[in-house]
C-alpha cells in the first residue's frame, strides 16, 4: 500500500474516532459547574485563535497582507451590525481587490 493510501485511511479513521469519542463522553462529565464554565470559554479562545492564525500567519511566519485588510473591514462591518453575509463578502472583496491591485 502506498504512503498516500495509508495516510488517507489512517487519518480518516482517527479523525472520525475523535469526533465520535467527543459525542460519547458521559453527560455527567458536563454537569460540573467548573466544566460548564470552561466549556463556555472554549469556543471564544478557539475561534479567536482561528481568526488570528488564518489572518496573520503564512505557514509559520507572521505576516500582514491582503487578508488582514479584509478581516479589518469585517470588523468594521460587525461594529456597524451588518448581517453575516455582508461581513464575509465585504472581507473577501477587500482582500481580493488588494491581492490584485496592491
Amino acid at each position, binding site marked *: 500500500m502506498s504512503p498516500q493510501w*495509508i495516510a488517507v485511511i489512517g487519518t480518516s479513521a482517527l479523525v472520525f474516532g475523535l469526533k465520535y469519542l467527543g459525542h460519547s463522553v458521559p453527560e455527567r462529565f458536563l454537569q460540573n459547574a467548573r466544566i460548564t464554565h470552561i466549556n463556555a470559554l472554549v469556543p471564544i479562545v478557539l475561534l479567536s485563535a482561528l481568526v488570528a492564525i488564518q489572518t496573520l500567519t503564512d505557514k*509559520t511566519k507572521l505576516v500582514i497582507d491582503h487578508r488582514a485588510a479584509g*478581516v479589518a473591514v469585517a470588523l468594521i462591518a460587525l461594529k456597524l451590525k451588518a448581517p453575516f453575509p455582508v461581513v464575509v463578502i465585504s472581507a473577501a472583496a477587500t482582500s481580493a481587490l488588494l491581492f490584485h491591485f496592491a
Partner: protein
Amino acid sequence: MAPLPARLRQNVGVSVKQDSLSVSLTVGAYGSAFGAASVAAHFSVLQTCLLSLLTFSGASQFAVIGVLGGGGSAISGIATATLLGTRNALYGVQMAPRLKIRGWRRIVGAQITIDESTGVALSQSDEKSAQEGFWFTGFGVFIFWNIFTVLGALGAQAIGNPSAWGLDAAVPAAFLGLVWPRLKTKSHWVIAATAIILALSLAPFAPAGVPIIATTILAVVFGWRA
C-alpha cells in the same frame, strides 16, 4: 428563556439558515483549494475525494497532504492530522448535550462535527436554533466542501489561487463573525485577546494547528477561576 412571539421566532429560524448557508458556501468553496493542493501533493483524485468525504476536517486534510507532499512519512502525516482533529473531539463534547442523538444519527452527527457546524450552533441563543444551525451548517459545508474538492482536484487551475477570490480572508472573517456575538463581557474580550496573543506567539515555533489547540489551556485557566 422566555418564549418568543411567533414572528420573532420565524426570524430567528431564517437567520440560522442564512448563517448556515453563508458559512457553507464560503468554507465549502475553499474545498477547491484543498482539491488542487492535494493533487499537487501527489494524491490521486480518488484519494483527494476520499479525504474530503471521510476525514472531513479541513485543517486535518491540509495537514496530511502538506506533510506527505513535503516528503514526510505517512505516520507523521497521520499524527499531525490527528492532533488537529482533537479539536473536533472537544466540539463533540459541547454538541452532545445539545443534540441528544444516538445510534446512526450519532455517527452522522459526529462526522459533521467541525469548526463551522459547532461555531454556528454555539452562537445561537436557544437549543432549537443551535440544533438547526449544527445540522444545516454541517450538511451544507459537507456538500459544498465535497463538490468543490472534486472541482479543485479535477481542474487545479480552473478556480486558481483562492487568494484571487478573497477566500483566504473570507474564512477568518467568518470565524470573526462567529466569535463576535459571544464576546458579551469585558472578561470575554480579555480572554479572546489573550488567546490571540498566545496563538500568534506559538505560531513561529509550534507545528500547524498546535497554536490553536494550545489556547484551550486558557479556557481551562480562566474557566477554573470563574
